């Protein structure tokens, strides 16, 4: 019970695992004895037994057991690169929608411009999209963002596509290999935010192709036919060009 058998040599790309069998665990399911192993995310230890707390695929890496969840909300961590929308503007700060449970706060001191008190709206207004980094998250989920840093800026053009947060790694691929492939094929600039928002900039055909490809990667990225479908999409794009 709880085992997933990969069919036809199926690989799950998101974690680069090639095993023939992966275990789907549900909350409360006993994983095994905790002796000699560490409990990672999605696992708790009770009376020397490891217990899954989330629905997902069981993983073991560096002697740490964890659950790669099938569904998860974005939980911001310090240092995350994210694509955020301006949700509210105050005299000296912006509240940003970061696709999480809470809004992020961008104070004018961490904006890339010199902002006068009361003039925040002149730089960014509600609905603007920015590339920002999570500066700090405290234990009460207060999130502070920064736009001071290389490449962090307001995104004035392009499109934003949403992907499930748990599929961000899958879209990037091993060492960003898949992301680079999508960039090359679509001839677009693509930035993947940790919060499941992807910014795509290029010509309209390239953006449309990239959006379609992102959806396909998120939905089919773990299946055997994924490689063939992507190759076919790349050929079609080349043909159109």
């Amino acid at each position: 019970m709880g085992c997933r058998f990969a069919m036809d040599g199926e690989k799950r790309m998101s974690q680069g695992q090639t095993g023939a069998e992966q275990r789907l665990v549900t909350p409360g399911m006993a994983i095994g004895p905790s002796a000699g192993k560490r409990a990672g995310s999605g696992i708790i230890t009770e009376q020397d037994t490891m217990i899954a707390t989330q629905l997902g695929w069981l993983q073991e890496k560096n002697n740490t057991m964890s659950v790669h969840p099938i569904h998860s909300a974005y939980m911001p961590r310090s240092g995350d690169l994210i694509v955020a929308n301006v949700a509210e503007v105050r005299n000296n700060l912006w509240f940003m929608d970061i696709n999480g449970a809470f809004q992020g706060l961008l104070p004018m001191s961490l904006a890339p411009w010199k902002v006068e008190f009361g003039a925040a709206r002149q730089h960014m207004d509600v609905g603007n999209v920015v590339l920002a980094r999570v500066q700090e998250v405290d234990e009460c989920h207060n999130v502070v963002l920064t736009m001071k840093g290389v490449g962090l800026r307001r995104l004035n053009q392009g499109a934003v596509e949403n992907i499930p947060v748990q599929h961000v790694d899958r879209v990037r691929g091993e060492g960003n290999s898949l992301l680079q492939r999508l960039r090359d094929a679509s001839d677009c600039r693509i930035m993947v935010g940790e919060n499941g928002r992807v910014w795509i900039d290029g010509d309209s055909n390239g953006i449309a192709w990239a959006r379609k490809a992102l959806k396909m990667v998120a939905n089919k990225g773990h299946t055997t036919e994924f490689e063939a479908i992507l190759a076919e999409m790349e050929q079609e794009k080349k043909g159109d060009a």
Partner: protein
Amino acid sequence: MGGYGDVQLLREDGSRLDGRKLDEMRPVKIEAGVLPAADGSAMVTHGLNVAVAAVYGPMEAHPRKIQRQDRAVIDVRYNMAPFSTSDRIRPGFNRRSREISKVTAEALESVVLVELYPRSKIRVEIEILAAEAGTRCAGITAAAVALADAGIPMRDLIVGVASGKIEDTVVLDLDKAEDNYGQADLPVGILPNTGEIAFLQMDGDLSPDEYNLAMEYNFKAAKEIHEVMVEALQRRYQGGDV
């Protein structure tokens, strides 16, 4: 409990009116992920009961006065559809639905790892589409599967199940006639892996021996329902798009 009556609820051969044995449950069917707009959802068919649960969040808790600085709050709304019973129910909240919403929220709070989401709210909507006694149990079971489907961390999958007493005999999983004309009802929320009880209500009177037997039935049924819950979650994701 509709009170004592002279309705015969057991046949002469000792079986129940619908042919079940004393410790036999009505058939249970569970499907996960039935509502695409929700973060997690489930539909539970328990006998003639049909309960649909949808989970949204974690999200920022509003109004702010309900926020807890060290944990999430679980906001449960249990509602019976006007067409769920033979007599039309007046739509909207009533005393019973408020009570069930409250006890369900408290039961779920004891299994969800609420401390992971301070100041947040997890919204659970339970809608009873068809009712035939035992809707609060079906609702709890549906909520547990929906929470798991939404990726909310939990210590266990809580199972709602009930036993009761009819004609001085303890039976498992009361149906409508047994609930209306029986002597006692004991719905519980059980954590099958640890054997803990997250929720217990009792309507009517049970002696200590009857209580022990009813709980024995409940634990046995909880194991069976738990297997169906796990299967439902696995069926949704084993070969699908994940």
